[in-house]
């Protein structure tokens, strides 16, 4: 798309899980690209390999073959810790917030890791929380005290706080009701279009997928088609 930057290039990657008892090839020869300012949805049935693909994009492991280029740099050769800290944010279906940190502290955490001023980090965290629709009452609560939708909004706020160009979301609406689902999808879209992030959502929810700019269908570890 015009004006958008090709940030991720996937070159024929495969990934095999190896456990003591079996070997499973979860990803089979996938090639594609991802640009900033676009919201992508990866859809497919359970076990199709979409979450594994997302994890590989997040740099949580390396493909067994092929390579992933991040701004033309091979992920295998870059510092993946730094990549995860500065360039990519992840939102999970299960939220994965720190249960013993308050909502604000959860959002502040990535900024503090990036050595931002604590006071500024707090201000920004509160702003982000407000922007995702959480009220001030929620700021000092622990995640366990919030509803699923609120927790997911907090998780998105934390993802936004890191200011990475890539936002990955694994079934972000999986545990949410329809109302919250709409809010989260809208937020994702805003991040893609207004803040020029590459938003990649793994979902099996077709309603969510329909809201995306690009849909990637996966089956048995393969990428079947890409719908613009």
């Amino acid at each position, binding site marked *: 798309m015009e004006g958008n930057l090709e940030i991720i290039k996937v070159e024929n990657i495969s990934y095999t899980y190896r456990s003591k008892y079996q070997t499973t090839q979860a990803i089979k020869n996938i090639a594609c690209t991802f640009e900033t300012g676009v919201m992508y949805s990866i859809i497919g049935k359970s076990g199709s390999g979409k979450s594994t693909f997302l*994890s590989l994009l997040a740099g949580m492991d390396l493909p067994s073959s092929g390579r992933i280029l991040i701004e033309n740099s091979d992920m295998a050769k870059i510092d993946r810790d730094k990549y995860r800290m500065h360039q990519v944010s992840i939102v999970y279906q299960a939220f994965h917030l720190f249960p013993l940190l308050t909502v604000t502290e959860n959002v502040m955490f990535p900024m503090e890791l990036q050595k931002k001023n604590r006071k500024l980090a707090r201000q920004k965290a509160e702003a982000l929380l407000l922007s995702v629709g959480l009220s001030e009452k929620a700021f000092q609560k622990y995640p366990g005290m919030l509803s699923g939708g609120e927790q997911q909004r907090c998780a998105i706020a934390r993802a936004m706080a890191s200011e990475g160009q890539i936002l990955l979301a694994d079934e972000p609406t999986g545990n949410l009701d329809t109302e919250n689902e709409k809010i989260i999808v809208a937020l994702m879209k805003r991040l893609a279009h207004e803040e020029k992030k590459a938003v990649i959502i793994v979902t099996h929810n077709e309603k969510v997928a329909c809201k995306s700019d690009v849909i990637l269908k996966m089956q048995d570890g393969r990428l079947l088609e890409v719908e613009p």
Partner: protein
Amino acid sequence: MNKIIIRNSIRQILRTPLKTAIFLMLIVFSGALVTVGAGLWTRSQVNLKEYEESFITIGTVEQKASSIRQDMVWDAEKKNFIIRQEPEYSYIYPVSSLHFQGAGYTIPPEKRSYYASYTPEYQLVSDHNTFEQIVLVAEFSPLEDCIPNESVNIRINKVLGGNKNLEGTMVWFCSHNEQFPQQIYKDKTYIAYMVSSHWMHGEMVTDEKRGLEYNPIALTTSQYDQNGALIEDSLQNISAYYEVVPSFYETKEGKRYLNFIGSLALQKKTFPVTGTCRTILLMPFYNGDAYITDGRDISDGEYEKGETVCLVSETFAQNNNLAIGDTVNTRLYYTNSRNAASENFGTDGSQAFNFNILNAGGETPKVFEESGYRIVGIYSTAKGAGLSRYGMAGDEMIVPANSIKRKDNILAYSAMQGNTSSFQIPNGSVESFMEELGKNKIANLEIQFYDKGYSSLKSGIDKMRYMSLLLCAVGILICVSLLALYNYLFISKQQKRIAIERCMGIPKRKCMISMLTGMFLVLVLGTLLGCGAGAILSNRITKEDFNHTIYDTTYSNTNISTPEGNHPDTESDFHTTLMVFISCSVSMTFWGTGMGIYKTSSILKSEPMDLLAGEK
């Protein structure tokens, strides 16, 4: 980044107050248990070491007689034979017979001899000896022709040795132990060595005439060779008294009397020198009846090398103005391998000999070794005055046995006796020693052990040690279980937290810090409190136990040191307690942290993806 990670780690620990508090309390409890156990164990080890150093197990050896010989001795008063019993040995065990495998001596067995040193230049306690009042070597004539088978009157013509005041007086005389003594004539002169040892008896005795009689003693000799075999006397059929005829003193018999008279003078300026291989083997030193008041003991090295150093009695040093470093000259002229010096030389100057100081040739023994001994220590004796079997002799000098190169002119010899034969074995090894002795089938040796109650004390300490080990083991078990539980709760169960942190790009090392900081602080706090409380408690228990032990040591038959010496050293106690506290707290923290690091490392080996998959 570290700051925020540490802060968040602590924050998260503090936000689970109940879990943290329970863990803290349990760590405090197990730390206290471990420290009490370790403290008591250390104290028992220290006590045992102190006791090992203070207590000494000595064994004395006495060869039992293989039979008793019954000698028929005539008693002139009873006009009958009396029975005198003498032990007989079919075989005399050499000391080497005690060198069997498994004996494990600390100090090998020795059979001590003492050596008579003639040193007229010294003032001795025997200078005040009054044996002249008792012994008498004199020429005499009976008032009537008679057979001295009962008390008869004799006139002392000339005193050659002994009480000079008796010259010209009349005394009662009886050859008490001869059934058929030779007749003596009033116009003849006789010589005899006499001792007044019986009350007068016989027809001459009236109510007005009562007193002691003098009994003649034959001047037989008892010299032994190096193997303990008796050397035959150069004179046979020795009589208790002889007629003094012209040129009598030219005869062997006459010369023997002259030599004997010489030996009496020699005897008075003689002090005993005891050769040993350790001072502690001498029972008075072991019992604490003798102790060094100035200088030091003869060192092990000096004993081994046989250096010419000595311990002298305080009296001897004072009488002769001797001090540490001064030299005492010795001229050894006979050896006694039967008696302890204290049996023959009393601390009050008394002397008693059951042998004549004459060699088999009837001559006064010649000096066989002259030396100069440097005084390294002066000892005092707490008690004992006269002659005793287990005591110190008057003016007894103690030297390394190895310093005496020759053992000559042996005038007394016997099998091993309890007061002259001893050894040292490690404390607590009496049973194993006796077991090994039994295996070697050495019969007729009576071994008496002295350990001053060590066995009883050790049994008490062992109980304390087992109890402390049990406490320690239970504490360690609880502690390890706790740490494992803690690892499970705070690390394994927080795999998700590690996964999130890794997903957020926190490096593994910092994830480790994040996981362990809070735990480490709680662990350190818990161990400090627990180990501190444990150290204080163990200190109290040991102090109370020690006081109890002081009272209990009354069954120890002697003091080995001054009472002050038995009190625990407060500073040393403090250091011991501190060391136990440091060791326990550091060990627990080390183990806890180690277990945490191990667990976290194993989790961090997995990629974040696998960790999250595991969470699902």
